[in-house]
């Protein structure tokens, strides 16, 4: 009897051990099989057209960032990241064909960055069908109605609202402040000309005295500034990028017009400051979303610089674009990592990555900016006000939460 019990005990132990070993082996095998050799991410942008001046350093920054992630952070959960860069030349049809090429890749890119508003809008529906999250500029129509597009800074309308908040907090005169918009005549520039912004201004006690536009290729805005001056504006707010803010700043200086100038985030996401003629942008206020670029002692800033120097890049390319590359890659990496933690390698797809993005709560890619996304809001909400000094933006406020000025139908 005792002998039989011993035999059964041993047999049971062997059986349990075998099951455990087999189960473990099976798990390991499944994990090995499902784990890809590379995680593809993409960057689609105009690098040989009108936006080239600002996107070139962005692409360089992304390349450096991928190298940093793979060399120093062991990729994403041990799998190296691979960056695919596609140039659109500023043509929307090229953005579509490049996107088609990406979606046919194996493994399909889990994330893509697009920095031209019209291209992001053109790809929005396709990306939603293919379930590829896209990090893109903050034109309202590029993000809402909700799809797979995520804004990489607060909506342009929200930025304008945040500026008004800050302005009213610091306004000392007895009369209401007067602001004039002088923006690019494009999807991006005109994004702030909506009733939600006008109503918010009224609510805050800010008077909008002008809504002027200028062409993306214009080099003179004296006519618009003359009209703005006649209306007694205290502030000129410009939603423009690349050479746009220079044109406005140049016009103000040439006219000897004593007015404060402020630009939206869009101008700062690029090389606008770095490439500006010396002194031209000095004193300009910016609604800003990247902290570290003005903080040269920041460890991440040093890291970006290290790779910049290692690659012997031209000093002309040193600017926010380089940082932009790192912050994009860090955002990609974090979302993909979170998705893997939640669904494992076998369940990893664009939908899982999008859902992981929607869990961001005050996430700070490379300590530079603050992202909070939810399943009902794909645009972040934190900015701060800064002032330009040389190539840098010096903070003049703490992080602020932007008002939500999305049109009601998108809330």
């Amino acid at each position: 009897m005792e002998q039989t019990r011993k035999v059964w005990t041993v047999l049971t132990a062997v059986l349990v051990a075998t099951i455990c070993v087999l189960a473990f082996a099976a798990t390991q095998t499944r994990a090995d099989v499902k784990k890809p050799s590379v995680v593809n991410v993409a960057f689609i942008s105009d690098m040989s057209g009108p936006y080239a001046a600002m996107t070139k350093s962005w692409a360089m920054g992304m390349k450096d960032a991928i190298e940093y992630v793979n060399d120093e952070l062991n990729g994403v959960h041990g799998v190296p990241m691979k960056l695919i860069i596609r140039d659109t030349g500023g043509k929307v049809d090229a953005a579509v064909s490049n996107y088609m090429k990406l979606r046919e890749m194996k493994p399909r890119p889990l994330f893509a960055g697009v920095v031209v508003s019209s291209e992001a809008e053109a790809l929005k529906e396709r990306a939603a069908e293919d379930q590829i999250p896209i990090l893109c500029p903050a034109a309202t129509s590029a993000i809402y109605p909700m799809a797979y597009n995520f804004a990489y800074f607060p909506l342009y309308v929200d930025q304008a609202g945040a500026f008004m908040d800050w302005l009213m907090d610091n306004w000392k005169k007895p009369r209401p402040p007067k602001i004039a918009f002088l923006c690019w005549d494009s999807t991006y520039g005109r994004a702030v000309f909506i009733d939600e912004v006008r109503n918010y201004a009224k609510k805050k006690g800010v008077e909008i005295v002008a809504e002027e536009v200028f062409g993306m290729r214009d080099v003179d805005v004296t006519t618009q500034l003359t009209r703005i001056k006649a209306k007694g504006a205290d502030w000129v707010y410009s939603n423009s990028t690349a050479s746009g803010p220079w044109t406005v700043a140049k016009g103000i200086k040439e006219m000897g017009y004593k007015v404060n100038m402020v630009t939206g985030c869009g101008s700062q996401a690029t090389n606008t400051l770095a490439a500006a003629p010396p002194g031209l942008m000095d004193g300009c206020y910016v609604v800003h979303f990247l902290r570290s670029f003005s903080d040269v002692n920041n460890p991440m800033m040093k890291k970006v610089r290290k790779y910049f120097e290692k690659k012997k890049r031209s000093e002309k390319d040193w600017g926010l674009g380089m940082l932009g590359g790192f912050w994009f890659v860090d955002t990609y990496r974090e979302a993909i990592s979170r998705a893997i933690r939640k669904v494992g390698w076998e369940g990893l797809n664009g939908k899982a990555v999008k859902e992981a993005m929607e869990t961001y709560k005050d996430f700070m890619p490379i300590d530079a900016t603050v992202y909070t996304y939810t399943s009902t809001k794909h645009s972040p909400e934190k900015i701060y006000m800064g002032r330009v000094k040389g190539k840098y933006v010096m903070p003049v406020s703490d992080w602020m939460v932007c008002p939500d000025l999305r049109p009601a139908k998108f809330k």
Partner: protein
Amino acid sequence: MDRPCGVFDETYTQDVAVVRTGAHWGIVVAALILLFLLPQFFPGSLLANINAVFITIISVLGLQIIVGYTGQISLGQAAFMSVGAYTSFMLSVYWHLPFLIALPLSGVSAGLVGIVFGLPSLRIKGFYLAMATLAAQFIIPWLIVNLYPEVTGGTRTMVVPPPTIAGIKFTNQLSMFYVITPVLILSLYLVKNLIRTRVGRAFIAIRDNDLAAEVMGVGVFKYKLMAFFISSFYAGIAGSLWAHWMRCVAVDHFSLLDSIWFLGMIVVGGLGSVSGAVMGTIFIRVLDILVKEIGPWLGEIFPSIAGAATASLGPTIFGLVMMLFLVLEPRGLAHRWERVKAFYRLWPFPY
């Protein structure tokens, strides 16, 4: 045109036929079969490029009529495309008209707008007409953005539904290929024949010498306006296809730069030639794609000039190609192709 040895025309029908010999027919039929079968095996990215090229060819064909055949310069072809694209968007979205009705109506609306900008052509020509048509490239986008922004969307990108024919939705690149290609073939056929009609000959007479044409009884103003209408009609058709293919439309999609590229395409292909419009478009488009591939690759090799190399390569090569063609082959690729064909048609005889 030269015939292969032993091939003679015995009737006028044979003399004016586009497809002349049995072998010629065989090639045409085989090409059509291949054109419709091969895309089944193409990846979506290649098809996306092909679709973009085919739409561009339709627009460039229109430009060929006004520039190549009638001798009038137009710098507003992209703007006329935008008229077609926005017409198609509004007819589809607000009026819920079927694609097959919206398509020709888009052509007609663009054609009518083309007539307006063609009006100065009676009094002015050459450089001055170029300036007048250039105005279209500024006025039309301004009107789209400012006239009824609540209808057009202003500067916003508006979503356009994919084409639906007989209940079938054409959503992917392959299905769109089968929408775009028949329109392209029909366009080619119509232009090829238009040029051989009384109207086409009037266009050519105006191009060669408008004064002489008028003396011979050609109504110069009428035919110039007709040329503007037909040219813009083609642009409108291309714009409509563009909007439904892109599934969105924005005023930024149709820039002055595009109009200049279209002109470059007919210069490279050959002015006054249908095949020139096709070859020029394909050549420039392929060149553009190659440049975009080479740019980043150069950046990898020379990181210190990466940005500049990528940014400047496209315009530099485009300009260089224009110069080379104008100096070395002003009659374009079509002429070169005719010479190659003539050589093989007569080979091995030297006459």
